[in-house]
């Protein structure tokens, strides 16, 4: 029977103590764990050793669990907010996000820690008590994070915590014990010679001809090799590249605009009245540094002021228009581009970051990509827009598409784009479209129809890859981005 050097080493180690765990063999042979595993598997197939495997479950924290540990359980966060005063669910959700508050309320109710009266949440005596001490699940979370054993009285809580999504994570751990068989012992008795085998052929051996005198060890060519990963584009980058490619194939030119933008280009030029709820502080990130934009061309200021005052019957405030913000859509860049239109037709697109003042949760990101396409031509109409949309979406892989009436402050007509998603057998909203209002394009000096459509850049990836949590895109979990995602 031919034995490799590693196999021989293990047999010799087992001769001294016939039953050893992998851990013990590492110590007694000085071989790395992978070599021991590989060699002992071969010894097993040759009938020289027996391997006993025991699988143990190891509990750790999943991503929600880690978040809870760092920032507190949702019920703790809500509890703290209720410390001084009663609050309604929507007030709580303002800071924490709806999802968090929803979870918290469920658990606080189970604990009898809150009362809900007249739409407001208030702490019960039990709740107040928890302000001073830990809730049972907090204790469990803490114990798990330190790999400690959960005492009997907390096992019930542990079960409950298990049922909360993505809090705990269970990993299997295998312990191996290797024991010499009778045949193994016989082989050893016959004597094992550890003739030195060479594993790596070296340039020196080739130069000196020494290779003729040595024995090159035979490899286990079937064995798994160490894992290496190629460098790749991020999965979402591939999606962006693909969309950019589609635009270019369709003859669109890419444009860019500033990320820190003035309210004028972001809202006023788009005919969004200055008291529109969408402009309010809770939806838009305004900046405190820098504070105010320089005035755009007086011609546009004057035109936009006029159209607002005539249509909306209010006093337009230039100061408000110069407030700086993080652009809430790339349509701001489109407006700037419209002032540069000379020769028709014009077809431009952008794929860039936009910002919304939202709390991060599984559905919302405070910043995301917006994909936007624009066609400017005197002959461009709604049916042309439908034709372009059909082409664009089919190139992205959505063959079935339909349109419904919708509303945006700056388009008329406005359209909601829905695509049929084969895998889920259902229609899904995947973008908005429309023709810019004359109140938008005329003040910018354009005398043509402007077809426009846009969608959230992350959406197609989420739909196609069936991602439930949008946060995963920017988490850069190497387990996700390194593995097959083509």
């Amino acid at each position: 029977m031919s034995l490799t050097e590693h196999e021989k080493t293990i047999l010799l180690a087992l001769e001294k103590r016939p039953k050893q765990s992998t851990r013990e063999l590492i110590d007694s042979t000085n071989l790395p764990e992978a070599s021991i595993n590989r060699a002992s598997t071969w010894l097993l197939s040759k009938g020289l050793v027996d391997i006993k495997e025991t699988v143990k479950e190891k509990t750790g924290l999943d991503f929600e669990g880690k978040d809870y540990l760092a920032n507190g359980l949702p019920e703790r966060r809500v509890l703290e907010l209720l410390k001084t005063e009663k609050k309604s669910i929507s007030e709580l959700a303002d800071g924490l996000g709806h999802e968090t508050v929803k979870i918290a309320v469920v658990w606080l109710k189970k604990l009898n820690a809150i009362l809900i009266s007249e739409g407001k949440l208030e702490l019960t005596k039990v709740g107040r008590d928890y302000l001073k001490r830990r809730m049972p699940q907090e204790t469990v979370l803490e114990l798990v994070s330190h790999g400690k054993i959960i005492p009997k009285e907390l096992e019930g809580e542990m079960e409950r915590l298990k049922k909360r999504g993505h809090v705990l994570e269970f990993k299997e751990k295998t312990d191996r014990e290797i024991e010499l068989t009778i045949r193994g012992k016989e082989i050893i008795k016959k004597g094992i010679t550890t003739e030195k085998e060479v594993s790596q052929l070296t340039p020196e051996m080739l130069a000196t001809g020494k290779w003729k005198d040595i024995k090159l060890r035979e490899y286990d060519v079937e064995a798994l090799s160490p894992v290496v990963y190629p460098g790749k584009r991020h999965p979402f980058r591939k999606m962006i590249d693909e969309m950019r490619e589609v635009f270019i194939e369709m003859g669109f030119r890419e444009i860019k605009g500033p990320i820190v933008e003035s309210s004028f280009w972001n809202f006023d030029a788009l005919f969004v009245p200055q008291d529109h709820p969408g402009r309010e502080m809770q939806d838009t990130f305004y900046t405190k540094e820098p504070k105010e934009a320089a005035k755009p061309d007086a011609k546009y200021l004057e035109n936009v002021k006029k159209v607002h005052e005539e249509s909306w019957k209010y006093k337009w405030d230039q100061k408000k228009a110069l407030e700086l913000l993080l652009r809430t859509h790339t349509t701001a860049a489109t407006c700037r581009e419209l002032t540069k239109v000379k020769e028709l037709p014009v077809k431009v697109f952008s794929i860039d970051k936009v910002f919304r003042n939202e709390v991060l949760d599984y559905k919302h990101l405070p910043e995301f990509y917006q994909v936007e396409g624009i066609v400017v031509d005197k002959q461009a109409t709604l049916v042309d827009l439908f034709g372009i949309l059909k082409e664009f979406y089919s190139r992205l892989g959505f063959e079935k598409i339909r349109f419904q009436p919708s509303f945006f402050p700056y388009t008329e007509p406005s359209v909601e784009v829905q695509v049929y998603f084969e895998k889920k057998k259902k229609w899904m909203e995947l973008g908005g479209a429309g023709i810019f209002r004359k109140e938008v394009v005329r003040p910018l000096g354009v005398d043509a129809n402007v077809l426009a459509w846009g969608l959230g850049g992350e959406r197609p990836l989420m739909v196609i890859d069936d991602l439930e949590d949008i946060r995963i895109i920017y988490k850069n979990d190497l387990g996700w981005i390194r593995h097959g995602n083509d």
Partner: protein
Amino acid sequence: MAMIEIDYNDVCKLIGKKIEKEKLVDRLAMMGAGVEEVDGDKIFIEILPNRPDWLSVEGLARSLKGFLGVEPGLLDYKTVDGKIEVRVEKSVEKIRPYIVCAAIRGVKIDDALIKSMMQIQEKLHETFGRKRKKLAIGIHDLSKVVPPFTYKAVKSNEISFVPLGMSKKMDLREILEQHPKGIDYAWILEGADAYPIIVDKNGDVLSFPPIINGELTKVREETTDLFIDMTGSSEKTLEEALNILVCMFADRGAKIERVKVSGKVLPDLSIREKEVDFENVEKLVGISVDATEGKKLLEKMGYGVAGKKVRIPCYRTDILHEDDIIEDIAIAYGYENLKPKKTMFPTIGSKHPEEVKADKMRDALIGFGLQETMNLMLTNEERHYAKLSLKDGRRVQIANPKTKETTMLRTSLLPSLLEVLSGNKHEKYPQNLFEVGDVVIIDEKEETKARTAKLVCIVFADADSNYTAAKSVLEAIFREYNRKLEVKPKDQAFMIKGRAGEFSHGYIGEINPSVLARFEIEVPVTCLEFELI
């Protein structure tokens, strides 16, 4: 946007015809009122901000009647003149200047109407009313009070009354401090030294707008006559909302009675007219529609047509321009019937030069086996500066962040890459990662006082990561671009002393263990960052 709930049977009753549920859902969507969910007979609909007249089942049924062809054409709502008068005192000018009113006679109050009434009030308050600041509605049992009514401002202790839902009299200050609605809406009256109030001939209180009505005029099952008040900051908004509200009662068979409000007689349900050139339909929508068909389509949407003149119903507040009417023609025609047209609009496509550069760099870095990451631009000072032992630098700062996580825009890519390393400790090393991404730099020369710059950042994390290996890659990049590279020693707070250098628009070095400890990174990390070339 607002979500409303309607009852399937109720809407069919109002339309006057049983429509199959599936068809109803489809027609609603194709009319522009997308159905979010159907739960038994409950239908949940997303109402877009341009159609406040659809915030009630009555309003939706009214439009469906036309859209389904049950009863097309203009509904001309009639009013009768009454004797009710509302006096407006000057004292309200500074607090809540405008009031509009109407009376409704012969209402049959049932569950469906009560539900719809409450829903439309709530939704109008939320959307149109900007949380009651711009508009607040009160609906009263007219029989409990005696006209004329007076709208005036009073001191907080001047008047006390029993507010809705309470059993004892409270003065205005007490209501603001103790009544749940007072607590919710006190912010609207903040800083005022007198408060708006509506009283009748005998001084009995109808309403303390925009906070709460009196218990006295509470609408009950036996109520037959209603008095509606709407107060707020914009007269135009108020009149529009009043029209929407009174039509809803008329749809249930009640009579609308006009009220004299400081000189005006309201509601004004007169029909507006606008000229529409049907040739413009082709210019905007791409289908040709002649006058006969145009008339038919407009009537389907509830308009009246007399020659070129289109008569706009009094509840349509969203019609500003001819295009708004043309959009309705397209909706009546049916978006599903508009055949998509493949027109070339010949132009040449191209990538933005910045993206061309970024792509070239990404390709080069992937050639070195580096893995791309994508990170968020919003961050905070703790994560961006303090964790790297840096003092706060010049940066774009957010005035109104919703959480402490989003107080500034990044000026460097390195902190997020260290966070990525920190979050991937369980994954296999080496972890050699990069990002080519945007940062924002304050720049007074720009119109918006800031400019976007693209940076390149690479981190090498492994048990044997070191300066030399990183510099090999840096040198290779510069060779690839035919650029000269000159690295000079330059210590930085987040680097190991004597193992860091700078070059034109960039730096390179080994991360200081104290910084690694803060990120809980357990292997050495070498990094380099520079402006995209």
